């Protein structure tokens, strides 16, 4: 899910109206978009949770976007601070860095 928010998903608005309100225009990750993943449990104690337990699930989304943003920074030297981190965003940031920013259309 967070991979989708990070890489693809952008809500386009025109005067407050969503203009890509369908799965045809608002792409979410398909079976080819999700890479192999490994899970690693990190031991921790949540002081206000029952028996020190912490919620699972969407908690794991927090790390995805910063990890990919850091990877992009590491690879091409641009720091993206807005999602999604798609090819267009990277190109715009690279052009801005070279003082040749792209126009809006």
């Amino acid at each position, binding site marked *: *899910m967070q*991979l*989708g928010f990070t890489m693809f998903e952008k809500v386009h608005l025109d005067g407050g109206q969503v203009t890509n309100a*369908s*799965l*045809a225009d608002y792409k*979410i*990750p*398909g*079976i*080819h978009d*999700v890479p*192999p*993943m490994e899970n690693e449990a990190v031991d921790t104690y949540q002081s206000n949770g029952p028996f020190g337990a912490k919620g699972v699930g969407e908690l794991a989304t927090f790390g995805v976007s910063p990890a990919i943003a850091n990877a992009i920074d590491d690879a091409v030297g641009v720091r993206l601070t807005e999602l999604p981190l798609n090819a267009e965003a990277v190109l715009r940031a690279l052009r801005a860095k070279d003082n040749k920013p792209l126009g809006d259309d």
Partner: protein
Amino acid sequence: MSTAARTINFTLNGRPVTADVKPHHNVVEFLQSQFALFGARESCGQGLCGCCTVLVDGKPVSGCLYLAVFLDGAEVVTVENLAEPGKLDLIQDAFIECGAFQCGYCTPGFIMMSRALLVQHPDPDDQQIRDYLTGNLCRCAAYPEIVNAVKMAARKSKAGSTGRS
């Protein structure tokens, strides 16, 4: 266009049935309203997500786009079709065993598409599974587990057909 209901006959999960259908009803509305089958769900309504997949004469179709009148004379199979009463089939079992879902909304569609896949490719590799299931979306992104489940079902089906358990 006349909006009068038409009477159609078809086979639903192995049982011959007769029903009245309006010409504008799609398969999802039809199965839900006439047969109380809620396995095929409408999600995107545009044939993009695969949640409404049912098999018509063995071919997977998007129930949100397929008109119910076209079912006349066809053999229709939905996710409710079990191996035998009260017993899940290999694919349904494998999805549970592999944990191939979180919320489960897309699962009937994946199971129906996997049934069609295993008929065509009884021993699929990862790439074939991914290619075949590319039209099914899972918001929880349980894709790796789904691939495992399909492989498990293929293995079990092979083992079953050669007499091993």
